[in-house]
């Protein structure tokens, strides 16, 4: 245990090593670590933000989906209503058309009946005239009685 100059030399090298560490070893390492800590913190924050955005987006998507569904339901309802309306309309038109056709046919039938009646009337009058002519050939003045018959035929 003899104290000698070694002590001073050792102290000098200690001082140099401290200076070296303070200057060249510690700061770059500290900077690297602090930068990494910042990066990790930023990354975590970004992840958190991303998750929040995802939640918001999915919420938005679900609202959109709901509204789209509602809209679709509305459109379908409208379409059904419109279809019903069209059917009603068509029914109405068809009814009118049918009525029209029915009326036409009825009118035609009436005409035909009238015409047939007219013909029959003529034939009946002719037959009556012919019969009367045969029965009353001799004594009856054909012309005077013909006028009388014509008056009757017109009264039928």
């Amino acid at each position, binding site marked *: 245990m*003899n104290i000698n100059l*070694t*002590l001073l030399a050792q102290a000098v090298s*200690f001082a140099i090593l401290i200076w*070296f560490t*303070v200057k060249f070893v510690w700061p770059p390492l500290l*900077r690297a*670590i602090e930068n*990494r800590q910042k990066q990790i913190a930023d990354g975590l924050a970004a992840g958190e933000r991303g998750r929040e955005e995802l939640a918001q987006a999915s919420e938005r998507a679900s609202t959109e989906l709901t509204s789209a569904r509602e809209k679709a339901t509305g459109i379908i309802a409208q379409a059904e209503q419109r279809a019903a309306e069209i059917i009603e309309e068509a029914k109405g038109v068809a009814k009118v058309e049918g009525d029209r056709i029915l009326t036409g046919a009825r009118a035609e039938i009436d005409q035909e009946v009238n015409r047939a009646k007219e013909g029959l009337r003529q034939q009946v009058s002719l037959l009556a005239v012919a019969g009367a002519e045969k029965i009353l050939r001799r004594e009856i003045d054909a012309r005077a009685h013909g006028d009388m018959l014509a008056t009757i035929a017109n009264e039928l």
Partner: protein
Amino acid sequence: MASETTLTPSSYIEHHLGFNTSSVGEGGFWVLHVDTLIMSVLLGVVVFGFLWWAVRGATSGVPTKRQAAIELLMGFIDNQVKSIFHGDRHVFLAPTAFTVFVWVLFMNAMDFLPVDIMAWIYEHVFHLSHWRSVPTSDVNATFALALSVWLLMIFFSIKVKGLGGWVHELFCAPFGSNPLVWPANFLFNVIEYVSKPLSHSLRLFGNMYAGEIIFLLLGMWAATGLTGTIASAILGAGWGIFHILIVVLQAFIFMMLTVVYIAMAHESH
């Protein structure tokens, strides 16, 4: 393995504990322990050169294993300093603690080198008849560290409190500022200032020196015959394993005391 022709236990121990001295002037003080200096400076250059090399390429991205290991050590020491010191530790104290821990750890770790094999290598490869591998088992080395810390302690004390504040504290702490207790305060502080570097350096020195002595005693036992060889091999292995703890623990204690002393210098009473 000694150069002497007759090998006695005392000459064996004496040889192993002899320094490689180099006289640079008159008297006992102007002597250099070349082995202590070379070993400590060499370790400093290699270890801190490695740190510098590893740190120069330090990235804030994914670190290499090398960088991660250094960062783990750094984080560990930084945490210790943070719990003790409340100023801006990155300016000086934390890197100083780092320096102390790493350097003392590696100087202590020289104790793992097997004493006799290394003595043979120093003798026959480097032609050095005396060479101590463990710088921290030289009281000069531990005193140099402790006194440097002591000076730093006084420096920061004066820097933080001013010269007047420091002198005031010498006389007015811990018992109070009454002039009657000034002598007691001063005596107390002187004792504290003397005991701090002594306990700081002698703790480390004592542990490392004792460790070395035990290895030497086991080595002596090994020379007594087969039983001694086997027993000392087993005990030497056990002591070596236990020494892993001592080496790290003493480096840690030395660092912690450094931090505590310098941190205390920053606090006013």
